[in-house]
């Protein structure tokens, strides 16, 4: 029996030895970071047209030609995968019944598969056996993946078709940046239609800002002593006023990193090989700077904090924040719960504890603004992988997609319900939507205020290049930010350098 005890203890020692191995993470290298002033100067030097202007001449023939006579009116069933929750599905259903008034024989079954990754995983598995749906929410890198077996219908012929295509006004009505997102796959062909978009905005505690006469920050880093409109200055000031607070909560680490790359013109990714360019001195210096901001307790992010930073922004007691950069769609969540107070003549009134202001996010170069554009597009699948999808189903799918993306009423109602931004310019004039945006204020209709801000920064939208594996880069830079900000190390330079290298290895694995 002695033997039994000995082996047991031996196993425990082995385990402890393993555990210790896992703890060392101080990179060996040492060196100097680029100075922030230099980065700001480079950013300012950039002219407005560099970066995301792409040429769209077609290098390939579209893979789908519209059958003669377009839709023959036959009974057709189409399947639509999306990530809409309960409230958005009800809006969708309303417009499906509307759509069926003109096309009674097109039956649209729609299904919430889960999050965006779930949709991708589900379709990538179904594609292997030809079970793919007809229409699906998609992001650029999803489409890159579906294009491996060429399963996505190129919409050019459908768009240009005389009787079921888009009229010139309809085409012009699309917001330029969103429409072009559909044809950034390197061959100039149109793969996706923009469905509903969102961007990032800066929410700030307007009441607090006016009380302490703080100005809304317009750029990141202070230039000179008396620069009171830099985010750096505002954070420092807020920290002095309320030391227990975390001045700024930035929800998405990946968006933050990619936006900084766009604003500073430092490399992130490219559609052509080599794809991953984010391991450069500018980015390392930026993250180092933000690391010190984090250690001063000025900022936190959703993953580090463990929950959406909107929780901090609306908090009344305990730790709270006074600025939050998050999705424009999440406006309603950035508004504090109503509080019942006694007004002067004693009767109870429920009112918001503070007013929320919304502004566009700080920029490195004010006349070259860059802000991320996100939100799903939709794509249509063909009969790749031996699937039984017929041309009529493709045409029917196109009719449904065209109806949704060009119907001003749908775009207006969907945007109001979701907080997303409509893809059509004319939605701004739609009476219902106009009334909605007029009433915009920091309280009850905060969603309208967010929509108004989004409309003002339409020209600043950028989208990252889409290629198979681009979402891996996005995941890696996200965890890179969290790791650099909250990682414990004694040799910061080495630690950051190694973190960047690991991220690149991971992408190229």
């Amino acid at each position, binding site marked *: 029996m002695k033997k039994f005890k000995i082996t047991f203890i031996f196993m425990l020692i082995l385990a402890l030895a393993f555990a210790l191995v896992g703890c060392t993470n101080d990179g060996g290298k040492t060196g100097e970071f680029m100075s922030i002033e230099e980065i700001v100067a480079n950013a300012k030097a950039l002219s407005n047209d560099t970066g995301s202007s792409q040429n769209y001449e077609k290098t390939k023939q579209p893979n789908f030609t519209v059958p003669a006579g377009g839709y023959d009116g036959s009974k057709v069933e189409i399947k639509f995968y999306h990530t809409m*929750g309960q409230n958005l599905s009800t809006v969708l259903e309303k417009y499906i019944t509307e759509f069926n008034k003109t096309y009674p024989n097109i039956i649209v079954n729609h299904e919430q598969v*889960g*999050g965006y990754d779930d949709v991708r995983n589900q379709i990538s598995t179904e594609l292997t*056996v030809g079970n793919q749906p007809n229409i699906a929410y998609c992001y650029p890198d999803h489409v890159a993946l579906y294009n491996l077996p060429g399963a996505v219908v190129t919409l050019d012929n459908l768009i240009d078709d005389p009787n079921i295509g888009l009229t010139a006004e309809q085409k012009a009505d699309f917001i330029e940046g969103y429409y072009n997102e559909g044809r950034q796959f390197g061959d100039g062909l149109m793969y996706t239609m923009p469905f509903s978009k969102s961007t990032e905005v800066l929410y700030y505690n307007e009441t607090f800002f006016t009380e302490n006469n703080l100005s809304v920050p317009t750029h990141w880093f202070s230039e000179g002593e008396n620069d009171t409109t830099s985010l750096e200055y505002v954070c420092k000031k807020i920290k002095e006023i309320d030391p227990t607070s975390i001045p700024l909560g930035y929800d998405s680490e990946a968006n933050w990193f990619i936006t900084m790359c766009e604003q500073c013109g430092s490399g992130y990714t490219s559609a052509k090989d080599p794809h991953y360019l984010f391991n450069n001195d500018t980015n390392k210096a930026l993250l180092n700077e933000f690391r010190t901001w984090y250690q001063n307790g000025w900022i936190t992010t959703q993953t580090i904090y463990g929950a*959406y930073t909107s*929780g901090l922004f609306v908090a009344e007691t305990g730790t709270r924040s006074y600025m939050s950069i998050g*999705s424009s769609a*999440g406006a309603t969540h950035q508004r504090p719960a109503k509080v019942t107070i006694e007004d002067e003549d004693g009767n109870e009134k429920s009112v918001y504890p503070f007013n929320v202001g919304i502004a566009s996010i700080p920029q490195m170069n004010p006349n070259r603004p860059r802000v991320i554009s996100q939100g799903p597009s939709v794509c249509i699948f063909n009969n790749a992988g031996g699937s039984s999808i017929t041309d009529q189903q493709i045409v029917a799918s196109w009719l449904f997609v065209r109806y949704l993306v060009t119907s001003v009423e749908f775009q207006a109602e969907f945007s109001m319900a979701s907080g997303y931004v409509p893809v059509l310019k004319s939605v701004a004039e739609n009476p219902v939507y106009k009334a909605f945006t007029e009433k915009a204020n920091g309280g009850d209709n905060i969603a309208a205020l967010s929509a108004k801000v989004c409309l003002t920064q339409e020209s600043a939208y950028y989208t990252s290049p889409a290629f198979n594996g681009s979402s891996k880069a996005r995941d890696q830079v996200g965890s890179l930010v969290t790791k650099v900000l909250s990682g414990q190390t004694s040799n910061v330079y080495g630690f950051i350098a190694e973190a960047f290298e690991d991220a690149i290895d991971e992408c190229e694995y």
Partner: protein
Amino acid sequence: MANVTMIEKNMEQVTRKQAVVRVLVKILVYAFLIIMALIILFPFYWMINSSLKSLEEYKETIPTLFPKHVLFRNYAEAFDTASLGSLFINTLYVGLVSTVLSLIVTVLSAFAFARLEFKGKNILFAGLLATMMIPGELFTITNYATVSIFKWQNTFLVLIVPFLVSVFYIYLLRQNFLQIPNELYLAAKVDGTSDLKYLWKVMIPLSLPTLISITILKMMGAWNSYVWPRLVANDANHKLITNGLRNAFSTTTGDVNYPVQMAAVAIVSAPLFLVFIFLRKYIMKGVSRSGIKG
């Protein structure tokens, strides 16, 4: 060998000491068991406790041991948002049908392995046991392709058929059958009872506890399956508990309402818990009776 005078010490004192030791040990045993039981119970208590709190109270710095004001509403809300009703029915249906079918397959196979002699029996059984070691993910992808060829997506068939054969239960039942003396079988053979009659009349009654515990454990399997159902049968009227539960609460923008999620978890665990309480004796006897003698 002269009798060794063993104990000169005063008898009284030794007896008393031993009585004290005996009581002490009893206290120690009970203390150890109670502490371990509390550790096992604590997560359940915490689940119930959290599920009755409001979101704000749930997020307070010092978690409260009992909800300030009890919100049964969470349970109702959990029931609708995750549409637990249909999830339950689906899971129950899949669980029952797959359990009954797999019982038949298990009993027949165990009978063959325990009673009948045929070439290659041991190799086959060893092969079967080896499949227990293979990680499930290995099968998922290929089976997905096979199931699609059969056009079984979004049906109950696809949730039931692939998992009818569970090697562990065949092993468990075979052990149990082996304990039934062989003479019984030979005697039955002599007076002409067919295999099936013998199986039905003698073997099944004798190993009833094990069969019942297999049924219960198999039902629980349906409750816990997660990856496969999501892949092959994710539409509304075929969704099972776990994948229904999983993305019912992950709202894209706002915070997840943890208390309601806990409530859903509690609702999901309740039936299994009740089933176990009533059939505890059988489960215990079933598994131990098969006395896995290695």
